[in-house]
Protein backbone atom coordinates (compact mmCIF):
# COMPACT_ATOMS: atom_id res chain seq x y z
CA UNK A 1 0.00 0.00 0.00
CA UNK A 2 2.82 2.32 1.01
CA UNK A 3 4.68 1.39 -2.18
CA UNK A 4 1.62 2.12 -4.31
CA UNK A 5 1.28 5.49 -2.57
CA UNK A 6 4.94 6.29 -3.23
CA UNK A 7 4.50 5.35 -6.89
CA UNK A 8 1.43 7.58 -7.15
CA UNK A 9 3.33 10.52 -5.66
CA UNK A 10 6.22 9.92 -8.07
CA UNK A 11 3.84 9.86 -11.03
CA UNK A 12 2.18 13.06 -9.85
CA UNK A 13 5.58 14.72 -9.49
CA UNK A 14 6.58 13.57 -12.97
CA UNK A 15 3.34 14.97 -14.30
CA UNK A 16 3.96 18.27 -12.57
CA UNK A 17 7.49 18.43 -13.95
CA UNK A 18 6.21 17.64 -17.43
CA UNK A 19 3.60 20.37 -17.20
CA UNK A 20 6.15 22.81 -15.83
CA UNK A 21 8.61 21.98 -18.60
CA UNK A 22 5.97 22.59 -21.26
CA UNK A 23 4.93 25.89 -19.70
CA UNK A 24 8.44 27.11 -18.89
CA UNK A 25 9.55 27.78 -22.42
CA UNK A 26 12.42 30.24 -22.81
CA UNK A 27 11.65 33.91 -22.49
CA UNK A 28 11.74 36.02 -25.63
CA UNK A 29 14.49 38.64 -25.59
CA UNK A 30 15.46 41.66 -27.64
CA UNK A 31 18.71 43.52 -27.18
CA UNK A 32 17.78 47.12 -27.81
CA UNK A 33 19.86 48.73 -30.54
CA UNK A 34 18.86 52.30 -29.71
CA UNK A 35 21.30 54.34 -27.65
CA UNK A 36 20.27 55.82 -24.32
CA UNK A 37 20.74 59.34 -25.71
CA UNK A 38 18.53 58.59 -28.72
CA UNK A 39 15.60 57.45 -26.57
CA UNK A 40 16.01 60.20 -23.96
CA UNK A 41 16.05 62.76 -26.77
CA UNK A 42 12.94 61.20 -28.31
CA UNK A 43 10.88 61.54 -25.12
CA UNK A 44 10.76 65.31 -24.91
CA UNK A 45 8.52 66.87 -22.29
CA UNK A 46 6.16 67.75 -25.13
CA UNK A 47 5.91 64.14 -26.39
CA UNK A 48 5.24 62.93 -22.86
CA UNK A 49 2.59 65.59 -22.37
CA UNK A 50 1.01 64.74 -25.70
CA UNK A 51 0.09 61.29 -24.43
CA UNK A 52 -3.17 62.84 -23.23
CA UNK A 53 -6.53 61.12 -23.16
CA UNK A 54 -9.13 61.03 -25.85
CA UNK A 55 -12.64 60.11 -24.86
CA UNK A 56 -12.59 56.39 -25.45
CA UNK A 57 -15.97 54.70 -25.55
CA UNK A 58 -15.96 50.96 -25.43
CA UNK A 59 -18.75 48.93 -26.92
CA UNK A 60 -20.59 46.49 -24.68
CA UNK A 61 -19.36 42.92 -24.73
CA UNK A 62 -20.82 39.61 -23.63
CA UNK A 63 -22.05 38.36 -20.32
CA UNK A 64 -20.26 39.54 -17.21
CA UNK A 65 -17.99 36.88 -15.74
CA UNK A 66 -17.09 38.58 -12.48
CA UNK A 67 -19.26 40.41 -9.98
CA UNK A 68 -18.13 43.85 -8.85
CA UNK A 69 -15.35 43.75 -6.28
CA UNK A 70 -15.08 46.22 -3.40
CA UNK A 71 -12.03 48.46 -3.56
CA UNK A 72 -10.74 51.88 -2.69
CA UNK A 73 -8.55 54.05 -4.91
CA UNK A 74 -6.32 56.88 -3.82
CA UNK A 75 -3.28 58.89 -4.83
CA UNK A 76 -0.27 57.95 -2.70
CA UNK A 77 1.49 60.56 -0.61
CA UNK A 78 4.41 60.53 -1.01
CA UNK A 79 4.82 58.68 -4.30
CA UNK A 80 6.95 55.53 -3.89
CA UNK A 81 10.06 56.07 -6.00
CA UNK A 82 10.23 52.54 -7.40
CA UNK A 83 6.90 52.86 -9.27
CA UNK A 84 6.73 54.82 -12.47
CA UNK A 85 5.34 55.52 -15.87
CA UNK A 86 6.40 53.65 -19.01
CA UNK A 87 6.68 55.24 -22.46
CA UNK A 88 7.15 53.36 -25.73
CA UNK A 89 6.49 53.52 -29.46
CA UNK A 90 4.91 51.13 -31.92
CA UNK A 91 5.87 52.44 -35.32
CA UNK A 92 5.04 56.13 -35.34
CA UNK A 93 2.53 55.94 -32.46
CA UNK A 94 3.42 56.62 -28.83
CA UNK A 95 1.93 54.76 -25.86
CA UNK A 96 2.03 54.75 -22.07
CA UNK A 97 1.96 51.98 -19.48
CA UNK A 98 3.16 51.59 -15.89
CA UNK A 99 5.97 49.64 -14.28
CA UNK A 100 7.91 48.80 -11.10
CA UNK A 101 11.63 48.69 -10.35
CA UNK A 102 12.23 45.25 -8.82
CA UNK A 103 15.12 43.81 -6.86
CA UNK A 104 17.61 42.03 -9.13
CA UNK A 105 21.27 41.10 -9.35
CA UNK A 106 21.89 43.71 -12.04
CA UNK A 107 19.87 46.36 -10.14
CA UNK A 108 18.27 47.32 -13.45
CA UNK A 109 14.97 45.48 -13.95
CA UNK A 110 11.57 47.08 -14.55
CA UNK A 111 8.66 44.65 -14.18
CA UNK A 112 5.58 45.30 -16.32
CA UNK A 113 3.02 43.64 -18.58
CA UNK A 114 4.11 41.64 -21.62
CA UNK A 115 1.87 43.81 -23.77
CA UNK A 116 3.88 46.88 -22.65
CA UNK A 117 7.05 45.51 -24.27
CA UNK A 118 5.84 43.25 -27.12
CA UNK A 119 2.91 43.07 -29.54
CA UNK A 120 2.24 39.42 -28.64
CA UNK A 121 2.61 37.94 -31.25
CA UNK A 122 4.68 40.36 -33.31
CA UNK A 123 7.66 42.51 -32.45
CA UNK A 124 9.10 44.26 -29.44
CA UNK A 125 8.35 47.98 -29.08
CA UNK A 126 10.86 50.82 -29.51
CA UNK A 127 11.78 54.01 -27.64
CA UNK A 128 11.09 52.15 -24.39
CA UNK A 129 11.63 54.29 -21.29
CA UNK A 130 10.74 54.20 -17.58
CA UNK A 131 10.22 57.36 -15.53
CA UNK A 132 10.14 56.60 -11.78
CA UNK A 133 7.90 58.74 -9.60
CA UNK A 134 6.59 60.66 -12.62
CA UNK A 135 4.17 63.38 -11.60
CA UNK A 136 2.71 66.22 -13.68
CA UNK A 137 5.61 66.03 -16.11
CA UNK A 138 8.26 66.06 -13.37
CA UNK A 139 10.93 63.38 -13.60
CA UNK A 140 12.76 63.56 -10.25
CA UNK A 141 14.88 60.49 -11.02
CA UNK A 142 15.24 61.05 -14.76
CA UNK A 143 14.44 58.78 -17.70
CA UNK A 144 15.69 55.19 -17.77
CA UNK A 145 15.93 53.63 -21.21
CA UNK A 146 15.86 49.91 -22.02
CA UNK A 147 18.91 48.00 -23.15
CA UNK A 148 17.01 44.71 -23.21
CA UNK A 149 13.31 43.87 -23.45
CA UNK A 150 11.90 40.50 -22.48
CA UNK A 151 8.60 38.70 -22.24
CA UNK A 152 7.35 35.16 -21.80
CA UNK A 153 7.09 32.80 -24.71
CA UNK A 154 3.37 32.47 -23.96
CA UNK A 155 2.83 36.17 -24.56
CA UNK A 156 5.24 36.54 -27.48
CA UNK A 157 3.96 33.55 -29.45
CA UNK A 158 0.30 33.15 -28.40
CA UNK A 159 -0.67 36.50 -26.90
CA UNK A 160 -1.89 34.57 -23.88
CA UNK A 161 -2.99 36.85 -21.03
CA UNK A 162 -2.10 34.10 -18.55
CA UNK A 163 1.53 34.90 -19.37
CA UNK A 164 1.20 38.67 -19.90
CA UNK A 165 4.40 39.67 -18.12
CA UNK A 166 7.35 41.68 -19.36
CA UNK A 167 10.67 42.99 -18.15
CA UNK A 168 13.01 45.73 -19.26
CA UNK A 169 16.66 45.83 -18.30
CA UNK A 170 17.53 49.50 -18.27
CA UNK A 171 20.76 51.36 -18.93
CA UNK A 172 22.65 52.96 -16.08
CA UNK A 173 21.97 56.64 -15.68
CA UNK A 174 24.89 58.89 -14.77
CA UNK A 175 26.83 55.83 -13.70
CA UNK A 176 24.16 54.73 -11.21
CA UNK A 177 21.87 51.72 -11.49
CA UNK A 178 18.08 51.96 -11.33
CA UNK A 179 17.39 50.25 -8.04
CA UNK A 180 20.43 51.81 -6.40
CA UNK A 181 18.77 55.11 -7.25
CA UNK A 182 15.06 54.55 -6.58
CA UNK A 183 14.97 51.41 -4.43
CA UNK A 184 12.94 48.39 -5.42
CA UNK A 185 10.13 46.02 -4.69
CA UNK A 186 10.76 42.32 -4.44
CA UNK A 187 9.01 39.93 -6.82
CA UNK A 188 7.30 36.85 -5.46
CA UNK A 189 6.11 33.70 -7.23
CA UNK A 190 3.84 30.74 -6.55
CA UNK A 191 2.18 32.65 -3.73
CA UNK A 192 -1.38 32.13 -2.51
CA UNK A 193 -3.72 34.10 -4.78
CA UNK A 194 -5.97 35.07 -1.90
CA UNK A 195 -4.33 38.32 -0.79
CA UNK A 196 -5.01 41.99 -0.26
CA UNK A 197 -3.38 43.79 -3.19
CA UNK A 198 -2.25 47.37 -3.73
CA UNK A 199 -2.29 47.87 -7.49
CA UNK A 200 -0.24 50.82 -8.77
CA UNK A 201 -0.71 52.61 -12.07
CA UNK A 202 -0.78 55.77 -14.14
CA UNK A 203 -4.23 55.71 -15.76
CA UNK A 204 -4.41 58.09 -18.71
CA UNK A 205 -7.72 57.40 -20.41
CA UNK A 206 -10.73 59.41 -19.27
CA UNK A 207 -11.53 60.37 -16.55
CA UNK A 208 -7.80 60.35 -15.69
CA UNK A 209 -5.04 62.25 -17.46
CA UNK A 210 -1.92 60.14 -16.96
CA UNK A 211 -0.16 62.75 -14.87
CA UNK A 212 -0.72 61.16 -11.46
CA UNK A 213 -0.16 57.77 -9.88
CA UNK A 214 -2.99 55.92 -8.16
CA UNK A 215 -3.37 52.82 -6.03
CA UNK A 216 -6.29 50.43 -5.93
CA UNK A 217 -6.64 48.64 -2.60
CA UNK A 218 -8.57 45.39 -3.05
CA UNK A 219 -8.76 41.82 -1.89
CA UNK A 220 -8.73 39.11 -4.53
CA UNK A 221 -12.14 39.18 -6.14
CA UNK A 222 -11.93 35.91 -8.05
CA UNK A 223 -10.21 34.16 -10.94
CA UNK A 224 -10.93 34.14 -14.67
CA UNK A 225 -12.09 30.61 -15.52
CA UNK A 226 -11.64 31.22 -19.24
CA UNK A 227 -7.85 31.45 -18.82
CA UNK A 228 -5.27 28.80 -17.99
CA UNK A 229 -3.54 29.20 -15.59
CA UNK A 230 -6.40 31.28 -14.27
CA UNK A 231 -5.68 34.98 -13.98
CA UNK A 232 -6.64 36.91 -10.84
CA UNK A 233 -9.22 39.69 -10.44
CA UNK A 234 -9.33 42.69 -8.12
CA UNK A 235 -11.56 45.71 -7.86
CA UNK A 236 -10.02 48.71 -9.62
CA UNK A 237 -11.28 51.51 -11.84
CA UNK A 238 -7.97 52.55 -13.37
CA UNK A 239 -8.13 53.00 -17.14
CA UNK A 240 -5.77 52.82 -20.12
CA UNK A 241 -2.21 53.65 -19.08
CA UNK A 242 -2.34 51.53 -15.92
CA UNK A 243 -1.17 48.41 -17.80
CA UNK A 244 1.88 46.86 -16.22
CA UNK A 245 1.50 48.54 -12.85
CA UNK A 246 2.48 46.22 -10.01
CA UNK A 247 0.12 44.54 -7.55
CA UNK A 248 2.02 44.77 -4.31
CA UNK A 249 1.62 42.61 -1.19
CA UNK A 250 3.97 43.59 1.62
CA UNK A 251 6.97 44.75 -0.40
CA UNK A 252 6.60 42.22 -3.22
CA UNK A 253 5.04 42.46 -6.67
CA UNK A 254 2.74 39.47 -7.19
CA UNK A 255 1.42 40.43 -10.61
CA UNK A 256 0.66 43.40 -12.87
CA UNK A 257 -2.37 45.12 -14.40
CA UNK A 258 -3.08 43.10 -17.54
CA UNK A 259 -6.63 43.39 -18.87
CA UNK A 260 -10.25 44.12 -18.12
CA UNK A 261 -13.56 43.12 -19.66
CA UNK A 262 -15.51 45.83 -21.44
CA UNK A 263 -18.70 44.77 -19.65
CA UNK A 264 -17.12 44.59 -16.20
CA UNK A 265 -16.40 48.11 -15.02
CA UNK A 266 -14.03 48.38 -12.09
CA UNK A 267 -12.49 44.92 -12.35
CA UNK A 268 -8.82 44.47 -13.27
CA UNK A 269 -7.10 41.18 -14.05
CA UNK A 270 -3.48 40.09 -13.69
CA UNK A 271 -1.66 36.84 -14.49
CA UNK A 272 -0.75 34.46 -11.67
CA UNK A 273 3.04 34.58 -11.27
CA UNK A 274 4.19 30.96 -11.31
CA UNK A 275 7.30 29.24 -12.58
CA UNK A 276 7.24 30.86 -16.03
CA UNK A 277 7.15 34.33 -14.46
CA UNK A 278 9.94 33.35 -12.12
CA UNK A 279 12.08 32.20 -15.03
CA UNK A 280 11.52 35.54 -16.79
CA UNK A 281 12.43 37.44 -13.63
CA UNK A 282 15.60 35.40 -13.06
CA UNK A 283 16.65 35.79 -16.65
CA UNK A 284 16.06 39.56 -16.63
CA UNK A 285 18.11 40.06 -13.50
CA UNK A 286 21.08 38.09 -14.67
CA UNK A 287 22.05 39.98 -17.78
Amino acid at each position, binding site marked *: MKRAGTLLIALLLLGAIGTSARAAQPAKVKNVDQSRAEVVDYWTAERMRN*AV*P*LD*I*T*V*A*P*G*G*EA*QQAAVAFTRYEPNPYPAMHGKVFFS*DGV*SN*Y*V*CSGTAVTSANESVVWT*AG*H*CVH*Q*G*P*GVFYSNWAFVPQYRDGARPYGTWTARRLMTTSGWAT*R*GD*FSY*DLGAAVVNANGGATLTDTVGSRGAAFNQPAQQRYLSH*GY*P*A*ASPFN*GQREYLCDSNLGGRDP*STSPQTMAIGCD*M*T*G*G*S*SGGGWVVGNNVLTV*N*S*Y*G*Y*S*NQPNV*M*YGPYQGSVAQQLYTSAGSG
Partner: protein
Amino acid sequence: MSERVVVRSPEPGGQVPPGGALRVAFHVDPGWESLAARLLVDGRDVTRESGQRIAPTYPPTRVELVYAPADGWSPGPHEAAVVTADGAPDAWTFSVG
Protein backbone atom coordinates in the same frame (compact mmCIF):
# COMPACT_ATOMS: atom_id res chain seq x y z
CA MET B 1 -9.74 52.42 -37.46
CA SER B 2 -7.77 49.27 -38.21
CA GLU B 3 -8.37 46.03 -36.34
CA ARG B 4 -5.86 43.37 -37.33
CA VAL B 5 -6.26 39.76 -36.21
CA VAL B 6 -3.10 38.63 -34.43
CA VAL B 7 -4.29 35.50 -32.59
CA ARG B 8 -6.76 32.78 -33.55
CA SER B 9 -7.02 30.16 -30.85
CA PRO B 10 -7.43 27.40 -31.68
CA GLU B 11 -5.58 27.83 -34.96
CA PRO B 12 -7.11 26.44 -38.16
CA GLY B 13 -7.42 22.68 -37.77
CA GLY B 14 -6.81 22.94 -34.05
CA GLN B 15 -8.79 21.62 -31.17
CA VAL B 16 -10.54 23.21 -28.21
CA PRO B 17 -11.36 21.11 -25.13
CA PRO B 18 -15.07 20.72 -24.33
CA GLY B 19 -14.92 23.35 -21.56
CA GLY B 20 -12.56 25.64 -23.45
CA ALA B 21 -13.05 28.94 -25.25
CA LEU B 22 -12.51 30.28 -28.73
CA ARG B 23 -10.25 33.35 -28.65
CA VAL B 24 -9.54 35.95 -31.34
CA ALA B 25 -7.18 38.84 -30.56
CA PHE B 26 -6.89 42.06 -32.53
CA HIS B 27 -4.12 44.64 -32.67
CA VAL B 28 -5.85 48.00 -32.88
CA ASP B 29 -4.65 51.40 -34.05
CA PRO B 30 -4.48 54.52 -31.85
CA GLY B 31 -7.87 56.18 -31.83
CA TRP B 32 -9.69 52.87 -31.72
CA GLU B 33 -12.98 53.31 -29.89
CA SER B 34 -15.06 50.18 -30.27
CA LEU B 35 -14.79 46.83 -31.98
CA ALA B 36 -16.23 46.80 -35.48
CA ALA B 37 -15.25 43.20 -36.23
CA ARG B 38 -17.79 40.43 -35.79
CA LEU B 39 -17.15 36.86 -34.68
CA LEU B 40 -19.26 34.12 -36.21
CA VAL B 41 -19.37 30.50 -35.06
CA ASP B 42 -21.07 28.00 -37.34
CA GLY B 43 -22.58 30.92 -39.21
CA ARG B 44 -24.08 32.62 -36.17
CA ASP B 45 -22.90 36.05 -34.95
CA VAL B 46 -21.69 35.49 -31.37
CA THR B 47 -19.93 38.83 -30.92
CA ARG B 48 -22.30 40.14 -28.27
CA GLU B 49 -22.19 36.84 -26.40
CA SER B 50 -18.40 36.98 -26.30
CA GLY B 51 -16.30 38.45 -23.53
CA GLN B 52 -14.28 41.44 -24.74
CA ARG B 53 -10.88 41.73 -23.06
CA ILE B 54 -9.03 45.01 -23.37
CA ALA B 55 -5.42 45.61 -22.34
CA PRO B 56 -5.25 48.97 -20.52
CA THR B 57 -2.46 50.61 -22.46
CA TYR B 58 -3.03 54.18 -23.52
CA PRO B 59 -4.04 54.53 -26.28
CA PRO B 60 -5.43 50.99 -26.70
CA THR B 61 -3.28 48.42 -28.48
CA ARG B 62 -5.17 45.21 -28.06
CA VAL B 63 -8.65 43.81 -27.71
CA GLU B 64 -9.76 40.22 -27.87
CA LEU B 65 -12.99 38.28 -28.07
CA VAL B 66 -13.46 35.14 -26.00
CA TYR B 67 -16.39 32.88 -26.76
CA ALA B 68 -17.66 29.70 -25.15
CA PRO B 69 -21.25 28.57 -25.67
CA ALA B 70 -23.35 28.91 -22.53
CA ASP B 71 -24.46 25.30 -22.82
CA GLY B 72 -21.06 23.97 -23.89
CA TRP B 73 -19.61 22.99 -27.25
CA SER B 74 -21.08 20.14 -29.21
CA PRO B 75 -18.37 17.58 -30.08
CA GLY B 76 -16.98 17.55 -33.59
CA PRO B 77 -16.01 20.12 -36.19
CA HIS B 78 -16.98 23.80 -36.06
CA GLU B 79 -16.35 26.83 -38.24
CA ALA B 80 -15.26 30.21 -36.94
CA ALA B 81 -15.13 33.39 -38.97
CA VAL B 82 -14.02 36.94 -38.30
CA VAL B 83 -15.54 39.70 -40.39
CA THR B 84 -13.65 42.97 -40.12
CA ALA B 85 -14.92 46.31 -41.32
CA ASP B 86 -12.18 46.64 -43.91
CA GLY B 87 -11.65 43.07 -45.04
CA ALA B 88 -13.08 39.86 -46.35
CA PRO B 89 -14.26 37.21 -43.91
CA ASP B 90 -11.44 35.14 -42.43
CA ALA B 91 -12.88 31.68 -41.79
CA TRP B 92 -11.32 28.55 -40.38
CA THR B 93 -12.38 25.24 -38.92
CA PHE B 94 -11.55 23.67 -35.59
CA SER B 95 -12.82 20.73 -33.62
CA VAL B 96 -14.06 20.15 -30.12
CA GLY B 97 -12.92 17.06 -28.33
